């Protein structure tokens, strides 16, 4: 199970037949395992890793530190849910330390992101404060280096 996940996490386009060969399992075993992982919510989806900086698309990303007042019985969950349900929010984590939620927001301009924070995030009941940090450059994300990948410069034959 773990090995199939590791393989798919590295390359989701491998077929069940290929994974079967790589792991020494039968194709059916792999197919069933993957189906099980999908239905139990371990595998949530398959997607391309896109470096949008290499495209024409104009966008900005911000990391927002949000401080909250926890609510009776619900802790931080219900406020977090009100935040992460916005499609502009690309990631949301509950953190230890000096703030509570780390929220990644994407928008087409600085202004759009700033407006989203002031008009949508900051006004939610229970939100004490926000601090917005704009991302200048993405070096690595999802285990993939966006910059400075290493080329294979080995000699063509080595005995």
């Amino acid at each position, binding site marked *: 199970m773990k090995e199939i996940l590791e393989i798919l996490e590295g390359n989701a386009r491998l077929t069940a037949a290929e994974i079967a060969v790589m*792991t020494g399992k039968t194709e059916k075993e792999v197919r069933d395992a993957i189906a099980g992982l999908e239905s139990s919510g371990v595998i949530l989806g398959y997607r391309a890793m896109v470096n949008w900086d290499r495209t024409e698309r104009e966008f900005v990303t911000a990391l927002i530190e949000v401080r909250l007042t926890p609510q009776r019985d619900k802790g931080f969950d219900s406020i977090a849910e009100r935040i992460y349900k916005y499609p502009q929010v690309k990631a949301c984590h509950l953190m230890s330390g000096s703030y509570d939620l780390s929220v990644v927001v994407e928008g087409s301009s600085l202004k759009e992101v700033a407006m989203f924070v002031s008009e949508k995030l900051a006004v939610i009941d229970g939100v004490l404060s926000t601090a917005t940090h704009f991302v200048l450059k993405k070096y690595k994300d999802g285990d993939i280096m966006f910059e400075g990948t290493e080329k294979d410069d080995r000699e*063509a034959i080595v*005995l």
Partner: protein
Amino acid sequence: MKSPESFVRDEIRNLPPSGIRKYFDLINEMEGVVSLGIGEPDFVTPWRIREAGIYALEKGHTHYSANAGIRDLRDEISSYLKRKYNVEYSGEDEIIVTVGASEGIELAMKAIIGPGDEVIIPEPSFVAYKGCVSVCGGVPVSLVLKEENLFKIDPAGLKSKITERTKAVVIPFPNNPTGSVMTGSELEEIVKILRDRDIIIISDEIYSELAYGFEFRSLATFPEIKDRLILVNGFSKSHAMTGWRLGYICGNADIMKHMYKIHQYALMCAPTPAQYAGLEALRNCDDEVAGMRAEYDRRRRYILNGVREIGLKCFEPQGAFYIFPNITSTGLTSDEFCEGLLRKEKVLVVPGTAFGECGEGYIRATYASSMENIKIALSRMERFINGL
């Protein structure tokens, strides 16, 4: 007057030039070659090791080290061998850090082999053994390993090669180029033959970390031969550190003190920053090594399945990162196969004959290459074979 070349010793002049020279020339004229001809990891050295190397430079560790290697590293090698293989060598006087395992092989040969001494070398195998023996004026005695024995040493075959002049035997498993391995019980049979004979055993265990589906056993775990065993290992294959040139050699202190002199005069010491990187490699990189091994294992199964589907006969290799398919069904010689495959389909594999005459009928392909490369190479190889 004598010609300049005539000053070169006979043993050196008579060394055969590399059989793969022409492939270098061919690929120089070609674009888009996919090479499965490289005997080194495709992984770059894990970052934490590189970072330790950089830090060593920053701290100014740029001088000669102790000839045998920095003491911390020797002690770390000692505890690594104990932890991994239950092998005991003292960092005090039984371990020398070498410039790659290849220096280890050379040290062993230079210390042990003199004119006329016979050294039994299983073939096909890594080219340096034979060359080193010849350089020392010794006589390499080829012990042909056979596909029907899964390219393992068969005890009777070994016995038949032993003469009064046999000074040493090389045991190179997991093996380059075949990927063959010897299990603990198979090694026991070899040990039974060697334990009562005055023969030095050079065990090249450079691929010890790359064993799949069985537990690697070091020959140094056999007490009955340990005094006459020289263990060669290093960082190149296990930790993807080929370019750092870092290896080590272990043995009985009374042999080591003499090898030490050769090492001292010729090399002084292994590169010092590399030794600090090696320290980090042994202390903190078991996970990285395991990760690389798991990846090689997946590719191993994939490429083995691939060559068999193409119609080539191939035994299952369980070590290193090579497969050694039998190509006799194509009607081509190893050299014809490799040259044809390169010219027509731009895929580079190495003829088995590069590893000894008995490699005829085989090719070596490495899976120390990305899965994408392996896929492309397999599909081109299939087209090549179908077009014959």
